[in-house]
C-alpha cells in the first residue's frame, strides 16, 4: 500500500514537471510561464531555494558523519583512557576533514545567493 502511494506520488510530480510542456501545445509562451504556471520570477526563486537546500542537506550529512566520528572517539577513549591525547588529535583532524565537505557546500550556497 505504502509503495503504491510512493509510486503514484512520484508519477504525479513527474507528470507535473512536464505539465507546462503539455499545456503549451499550440503556443510557445510555456517556457516563460515557468513550471505549473508559477510566474516569471521562477528563476530567482529556484536559485534561492537551491541555496537553502544545498547548505541544509550538507549540514545534515556533515552532522551525521561527525557524530559517528565523535562516537567512535568516545568509545575508543572509554576502552583505553591512556590513549586520550592521541585519539583527541585524530578526532579533531577527522572532524575538520568531514567539515570541509560542508564548507564546500557553503561556498556553493554563498555563490548562489550572490546570483539572486
Amino acid at each position, binding site marked *: 500500500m505504502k509503495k503504491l502511494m510512493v509510486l503514484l506520488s512520484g508519477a504525479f510530480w513527474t507528470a507535473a514537471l512536464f505539465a507546462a510542456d503539455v499545456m503549451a501545445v499550440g503556443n510557445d509562451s510555456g517556457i516563460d510561464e515557468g513550471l505549473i504556471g508559477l510566474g516569471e520570477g521562477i528563476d530567482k526563486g529556484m536559485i534561492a531555494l537551491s541555496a537553502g537546500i544545498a547548505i541544509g542537506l550538507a549540514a545534515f550529512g556533515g552532522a551525521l558523519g561527525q557524530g559517528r566520528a565523535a562516537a567512535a572517539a568516545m568509545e575508543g577513549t572509554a576502552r583505553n583512557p591512556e590513549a586520550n591525547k592521541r585519539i583527541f*588529535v585524530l578526532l*579533531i*583532524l577527522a572532524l*575538520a*576533514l568531514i*567539515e*570541509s565537505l560542508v*564548507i*564546500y557546500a*557553503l*561556498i556553493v550556497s*554563498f*555563490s548562489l545567493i*550572490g546570483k539572486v
Partner: protein
Amino acid sequence: MIHNPSLFELAGIPLPFAPLAATGLVLILAALLALLVRLAYRRHDGVLPRGGLSLIAALEYLLESLSGFIHSILGKHTADFERFLIGIFFFILLSNLLGLIPGLLAPTTDFAINLAMAVTVFIYYHYVGIRHHGLHYLKVFLGPVWWLAFLMLPIEVVSHFARILSLSMRLTGNMTGEHAVMGMFAAMLPIGPTAIFLFLGLLTAVLQAFVFMTLSTIYILLSIEIEH
C-alpha cells in the same frame, strides 16, 4: 559573496588589494615575533628551557608539540621538513587570528592567497618525491599493475589536482564563512552573544592552520613512502 568592510578599505587601499596589505601586516607581525624571540634568547645557553609563564615559553611549548606531532607522522624524515611545515602553520595561524580583530581583514579570506599556499605545497611535495626517488616516483601514477595504467593515470592526476582545490577551498570557506557569520551576528547584536562566535572563530582559526599543516605533512609522507 558577502562583503565585510575593513580598516584597509578605510585607509585607502581598495578591496582587491586589501588581502595583500593584510598579508604584509602578517609578515611584519611574524618578523616582530621572531625578533622578540631572538632578543629573549640573547643570553641563553640553549640547554635549559626558560621558566615561568611568558610568550616565549608558550611559543616553545607550541613548537615542541608541533614538532612531536610531525614526528609521529613523518618519523625519521622529520628534520628535513618540520621547518617548512611549522612555518606554514604559523603563517596561517597568524593570518587567521588577524581576522578576529574587528576592523582587520584576514588574508586567508582571499582565495588567491590560499591557492598560492596550496600550489606551493603541491609543487614542493612532488619535488621532494622526485628528489628522493628519481623518475621512479612518476611510476606511482600508473598504478599497481601495467594493464590498468590507462585508467589509473587520469584518476591519479585528477586526485592530485583536487588536493590543491581542497586545501585552498577548505581554508577560504572556513575563514570567509566565519567572518560572514560573525559580521551578521554582530550587526544584529553588537555586544553580548557575539563573544560566542568570537570563540568559535578562534577555534576555527587554530584548527584550520593545524589541518592545513597536517594535510601537507601527510602529502609529503605519501610522496616519500611510495613503496606499497
